């Protein structure tokens, strides 16, 4: 095992003590970028002014201020309702149960509305599926509602340009085309709505030549086919991660992107949390993968294989288990020795956990999927960790149908193509062929809400409503149906695609005279289906009302499928064979999906959990290990360099980033970027790698590229936006002069005693251990904390404990063992607190505004490190260093233990940020939200007409309870003080004590794994105080006596130390 020189590191640069990192880190505010900015040609011209000019300006502004002051105050209007709806009390939020549906991705949600505007998404905690967790995408979906790029009416498309038309005109043209005969094809991503399916059926009944093709941008076609073959049901089983003691995942990023990540993360975290240390038990998670996915970063062991070795890896595991169980073995393709020996161990462990283990794979090839299903069957997992009675319907796409459709289109037999949902000209493996085929279709209608690549190639757009404006239902699992209800009237003249279909099919079930025809349709559907098959409710109205209120209906579980009847020998020959050469893996990123969220700036600015890069996709290149204690970078290039990527004649320029845990000979890059026809947030962001995708020999969409050529450096991304080295905390290095270990961010500014302060290089930021040696970790934490507390007790500062003991004292607990790095909390924080989006260039200049970041640390083996995520926000120190240095007391402490920030008092000295050891304070360098009173103060340094979030449509997403900060003030996490105040007020109004759970921070409610607990330390019965009892709890930097209110629980892995991966 190659042991690194450091116990923990954050990046390759850190590991090899890069002098540039050192130079960049010791300054709190890296000024180089601004100097660069001003040094650019032209910038200075604008700013050039003499002393006389300055006096002139001064005189003018004084005069202007006087004139402005004497003017009358502008008249403001107060506009009440004409007829106030009973359900709305302006100033009080209402919540509606609904669902987040994005193709097959599904989440039960609650939509928070204020004055009739949806402003925030929360999880629906009564759902048996997710129990209230959310994902970053669901959190950000509310912003897409206010996308300025949305289509505002039906229209005709000519050469990518939309000319609007009325719906009547559109309907007439569409119907004419439909009646002309010829092939009619409907294309959509997976549809999980029973009512939508009924609408499609009605359409097919009216037009017999119509056929419907479902696809999934990141395809699970083989998984579905494998279950068809093995169990006779084309569905995805429900996986119960909470009941699995051994989890083996081949390539499946089930915590990040695969099928139902929130549901899986919830179950997974149940097996990973250490609540009772006396009988500590954890599941063991093996991840077999080529690049480090978010799921892989959480695994106890990562077994590295090349993408093409997955077939061999699965086959060898199958053989080991089959031979133990006396089943037929197959011919397994060869894989690397390390993986082979590791998998042999995994097999033994699986055999020891029969019925309590789980094997999954996302490899889109039939043979691999059939083998994995068979492994589960052999291990007795069917019926325990893998169940079919409540099978998931979240993927239904069929790659072969898509291929068939494309050849039909190419042959010219399709007359009308209606794309109901999705962007098949861009987001799937045969995009280029689809575009080619589309050119031969006469009428091409796209129902996308924004103009996308498919819509631009179409002849008509029939824009659908946003999810938050739609009626509908969703059946993600056989035994659960969820409601979708609108929380706002359509902002534009758009129509739900289901309604469009029904209107085109002239369905008699659609009452077009009704105010909301599709609502009536859904209701009618429910009356004849779900209502008539239930017995609980007497009348349909009460049934409907209660279902709508809860947002879901649970149905009886169907019968479990029979035994696995697959013949593995028949498919063994179609297993993927190792390629031998270099390979590149194309994967789905946590935030962008297949590109459908490209126009969403919240997701664009969300840092990737592993690389911590934003605004783009980056080619992961491996770090070469020289056999000693040093790394070499791929072709000597630095992160942010541009290279030319060529595969099979297709070429694209991409930006590289070095990645730990990447299998040698393998590269990886996320799909879904580089879109052209999309809102300004996503246009030309990242590189378009869609055309590298292809179909494999068995007719399934492949996400692997073989034999890529990567050129030498061809340029550099001048705005390489990676937040890894921003707000550096706890990075140590060697003093360039003395060689002594130092904290890189602690350079002294005086000339006397020049150099680094160099104290406390062993800072207590992360505590981690292994399950087998839990006692050691407990002892370590105990000793350290005892020592720190003994030191801290000698403090000269006065104690305010008397004050904190009264009323409330807010605190937080974060379980590092449950945090998977999914970043739902960071997006939730942006939504809740009106945190501005700053754009790529500003992030490059270290100006990102996120109040909550997730720090990622590597540790363990250098070639294949383990990872720990640490959500880091204001720690609300009861002895806060930032408060002492504020010259105007804009930041001070409340009696409830909150570190308060008064924006209107802040004068922007930034001393506080300088003095914060956790680096959680953010400064508004520019007027990102145009909150400034004087428009002249809104600079256009980014060269954009109007910054993100500054137009009136986007501003509708703002939380009215939180101040929109202007330029020049400092801001940071407030512990969601607006929620605290609201919870307190509700309790006061009801004349009762504040109960535990009345106040939950936005990050806490967003978390799919319940890693974050917020509460009142003074409430003895609170969940928070229960969580804090664990001996694994510590505070970050407790030794510096800041007395933070945020507590962390140590990271524990369940590693088998005898296994070298």
């Amino acid at each position, binding site marked *: 095992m190659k042991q690194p020189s450091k116990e923990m590191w954050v990046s390759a640069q850190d590991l090899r003590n890069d002098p540039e990192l050192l130079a960049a880190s010791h300054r709190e505010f890296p000024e180089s970028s601004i100097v660069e900015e001003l040094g650019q040609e032209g910038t200075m011209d604008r700013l050039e002014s003499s002393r006389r000019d300055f006096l002139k300006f001064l005189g003018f502004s004084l005069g202007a201020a006087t004139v402005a002051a004497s003017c009358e105050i502008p*008249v403001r209007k107060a506009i009440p309702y004409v007829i106030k709806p009973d359900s709305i009390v302006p100033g009080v939020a209402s919540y509606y149960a609904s669902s987040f549906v994005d193709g097959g991705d599904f989440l039960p949600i609650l939509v928070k509305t204020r004055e009739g505007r949806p402003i925030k998404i929360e999880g629906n905690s009564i759902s048996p599926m997710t129990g209230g967790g959310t994902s970053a995408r669901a959190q950000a979906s509310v912003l897409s509602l206010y996308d300025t790029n949305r289509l505002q009416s039906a229209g005709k498309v000519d050469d990518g340009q939309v000319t609007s038309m009325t719906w009547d005109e559109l309907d007439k043209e569409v119907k004419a085309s439909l009646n002309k005969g010829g092939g009619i094809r409907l294309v959509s991503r997976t549809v999980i709505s029973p009512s939508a399916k009924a609408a499609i059926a009605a359409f097919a009944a009216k037009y017999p030549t119509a056929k419907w093709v479902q696809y999934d941008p990141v395809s699970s076609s083989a998984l579905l086919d494998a279950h068809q073959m093995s169990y006779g049901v084309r569905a995805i089983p429900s996986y119960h991660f909470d009941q699995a003691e051994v989890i083996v995942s081949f390539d499946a990023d089930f915590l990040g992107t695969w099928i139902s990540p929130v549901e899986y993360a919830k179950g997974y975290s149940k097996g990973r949390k250490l609540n009772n240390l006396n009988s500590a038990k954890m599941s063991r998670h093996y991840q077999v993968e080529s690049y480090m996915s978010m799921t892989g970063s959480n695994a106890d062991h990562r077994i590295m294989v090349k993408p093409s070795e997955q077939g061999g890896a699965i086959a060898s595991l199958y053989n080991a288990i089959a031979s133990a169980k006396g089943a037929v073995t197959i011919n397994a393709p060869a894989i690397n020795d390390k993986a082979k020996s590791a998998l042999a161990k995994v097999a033994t462990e699986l055999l020891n956990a029969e019925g309590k283990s789980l094997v999954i794979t996302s490899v889109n090839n039939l043979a691999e999927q059939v083998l994995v299903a068979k492994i589960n069957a052999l291990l007795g997992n069917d019926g325990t960790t893998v169940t079919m009675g409540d099978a998931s319907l979240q993927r239904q796409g069929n790659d072969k149908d898509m291929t068939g459709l494309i050849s039909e289109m190419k042959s010219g037999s399709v007359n009308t193509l209606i794309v109901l949902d999705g962007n098949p000209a861009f987001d799937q493996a045969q995009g280029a062929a689809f575009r080619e085929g589309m050119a031969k279709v006469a009428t091409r209608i796209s129902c996308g809400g924004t103009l996308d690549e498919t819509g631009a190639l179409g002849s008509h757009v029939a824009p659908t409503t946003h999810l938050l404006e739609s009626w509908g239902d969703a059946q993600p699992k056989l035994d659960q149906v969820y409601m979708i209800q609108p929380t706002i009237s359509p902002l534009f003249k758009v129509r739900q695609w289901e309604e469009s279909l029904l209107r085109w099919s002239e369905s008699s079930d659609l009452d077009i005279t009704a105010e909301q025809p599709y609502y009536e349709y859904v209701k009618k559907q429910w009356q004849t289906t779900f209502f008539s098959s239930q017995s609980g409710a007497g009348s349909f109205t009460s049934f409907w009302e209660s279902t709508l209120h809860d947002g879901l209906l649970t149905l009886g579980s169907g019968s479990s499928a029979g035994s696995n009847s697959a013949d593995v020998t028949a498919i063994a020959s179609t297993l993927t064979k190792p390629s031998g050469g270099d390979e590149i893996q194309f994967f789905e990123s946590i935030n962008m999906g297949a590109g459908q969220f490209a126009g969403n700036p919240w997701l664009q600015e969300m840092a990737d959990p592993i690389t911590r890069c934003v605004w783009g996709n980056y080619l992961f290149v491996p770090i070469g290990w020289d056999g000693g204690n040093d790394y070499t970078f791929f072709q000597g290039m630095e992160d942010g360099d541009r290279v030319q990527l060529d595969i099979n004649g297709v070429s694209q320029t991409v930006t590289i980033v070095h990645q730990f845990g990447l299998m040698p000979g393998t590269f990886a890059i996320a799909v879904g970027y580089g879109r052209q026809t999309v809102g300004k947030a996503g246009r030309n962001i990242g590189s378009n790698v869609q055309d590298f995708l292809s179909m494999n020999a068995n007719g399934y969409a492949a996400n692997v590229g073989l034999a890529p050529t990567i050129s030498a450096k061809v340029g550099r991304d001048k705005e390489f936006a990676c937040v890894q080295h921003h707000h550096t905390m706890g990075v140590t290095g060697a003093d360039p002069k003395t060689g002594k270990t130092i904290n890189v961010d602690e350079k002294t500014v005086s000339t006397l005693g020049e150099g680094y302060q160099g104290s406390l290089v062993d800072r207590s930021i992360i505590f981690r251990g292994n399950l087998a040696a839990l006692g050691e970790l407990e002892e370590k934490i105990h000793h350290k904390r005892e020592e720190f507390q003994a030191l801290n007790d000698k403090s000269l500062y006065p104690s305010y404990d008397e004050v904190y003991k009264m009323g409330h004292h807010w605190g937080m607990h974060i379980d590092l063992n449950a945090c998977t790095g999914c970043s739902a909390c960071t997006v939730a924080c942006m939504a809740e607190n009106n945190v501005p989006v700053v754009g790529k260039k500003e992030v490059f200049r270290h100006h990102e505004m996120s109040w909550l970041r997730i720090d990622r640390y590597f540790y363990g083996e250098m070639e294949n490190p383990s990872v720990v995520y640490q959500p880091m926000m204001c720690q609300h120190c009861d002895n806060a260093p930032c408060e002492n240095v504020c010259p105007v007391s804009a930041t001070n402490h409340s009696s409830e233990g909150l570190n308060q920030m008064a924006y209107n008092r802040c004068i922007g000295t930034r001393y506080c940020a300088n003095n914060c050891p956790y680096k959680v304070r953010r400064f508004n360098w520019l007027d990102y939200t145009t909150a400034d009173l004087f428009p002249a103060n809104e600079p256009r340094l980014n060269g954009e007409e109007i910054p993100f979030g500054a137009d009136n449509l986007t501003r509708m997403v703002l939380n009215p309870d939180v101040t929109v900060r202007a330029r020049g003030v400092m801001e940071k996490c407030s512990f969601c003080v607006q929620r605290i105040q609201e919870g307190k007020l509700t309790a006061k109004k009801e004349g009762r004590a504040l109960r535990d759970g009345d106040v939950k921070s936005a990050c806490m409610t967003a978390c799919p794994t319940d890693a974050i607990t917020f509460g009142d330390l003074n409430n003895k019965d609170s969940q928070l105080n229960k969580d804090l009892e664990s001996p694994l709890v510590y505070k970050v930097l407790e030794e510096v006596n800041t007395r933070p209110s945020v507590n962390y629980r140590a990271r524990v892995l369940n590693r088998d130390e005898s296994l070298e991966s």
Partner: protein
Amino acid sequence: MVNKRLIISPLLSLVFLLTAFVGSAEVSVEAGKQLFKANCAQCHNRNMKDNLTGPALGGVTERWAGREELLYSWVRNSQAVIASGDPYAVDIYNKWNKVLMTPFPNLADDDIGSILAYVEAVYTGTEGGAAVAANAVAVVEQPKTNYTLIYSVLALLLALIALILARIVGNLDHMHRVAAGETDAPRPSIRQILTSKSVIAFVIFALVVLGGYTTVNNAISFGRQQNYQPEQPIKFSHVTHAGVNKIDCQYCHDGARRSKQSLIPAANTCMNCHKAIKKGSTYGTAELTKIFASVGYNPTTDTYIENYNNMATEDIEAIYKKWISDNYIADKELASLDAKGEKAVKDQWNNLVQSLTSEKDPKIGGPIEWNRIHNLPDHVYFNHAQHVTVGKLDCQQCHGKVEEMAVVKQYATLSMGWCINCHRQTEVQFKDNEYYKSYEKYHQELASGKRDKVTVEDIGGTECQKCHY
């Protein structure tokens, strides 16, 4: 609070009587007053003598004497009582145009007892004193002692002394110079004194200080709008509504008890009463027609106009002009509209159009755009519910005697100093609210007499993030 209790004490005997009547110790006039305000005041006149939407309640116990239980069930659900066929109940029902009273199923026996006690107290006049006193304490008048006179007398005196002293110094100086043998020792003229360096320096200094003081003071009150009293699109008078007719503030401003905003009522709230009261006491049809035109109500036929949003302006004009002119004719007892009347109708209509339309919204129908009087900066969080429901403040405390304002004006400065001052002085409603249990130390101190009150400041009410976040 203390003097209120004193005044209430004479009522105790009455309360005792009523206590015996309902057989419970929990009945109180004070509670009854709160309950009446919250539940009954919307429809029943508070003087208990006159009818409003509902009948005058004075003497109700007499009218139902012997059948108290039935009265109680009437309050909870009058429909049931009517259905039971009680002749008196049926009689009232018919007398009041078969309009049902809002049921109050949640009121307990004690609650109803309290309300009845309060009703009787007001009716018999025994509560009157308390009510007046309560009103008197409701508005905390800020002390307006005039120090100007004292200051000017003081300034005059000082100036006089300065003058005398200057004179003495001048004389002494002159004498000294004469004594020193200076033959030519002219006294400096007034002009010389005034143009001397020291005087000029002093004047400049004084000007700078004064100017600075004024600038700073004015800069601080920048953007404040105390006494702001804009004309409103409808001449709505709080004197008529809250003053004369004593409609509870929170009947219309229904957000105050439960929301951040107190809320300007929606036009349909106006229609609750103005469906019946179609002509105003002051302006006749001139102002009320604006509400009808806003919601699309045809006062002539007493119906809401269908598809009003898409109606042509001419049709709308015809409807409301007819209403105005009909009323004009009826009022003046004319056979048909005379020339003067025609002008009046035209003027009223033009005024209506002007009030209900703007450049941005040229439609007559739709919401009324009121001029907002109380404006807080965006970085201030203020919640009405906190102050009204939890703090139990009277509206008048911040808004002044709105019931005496024909045109509302901003009473308070709404400055931060004004907020903070109040938070420093105001006592928290500590005792009755379970929420404050967590402040154990204060409870102990109150019990031991170490502390006589807990102010908002004591529980953190002056910390930044109570209002700024």
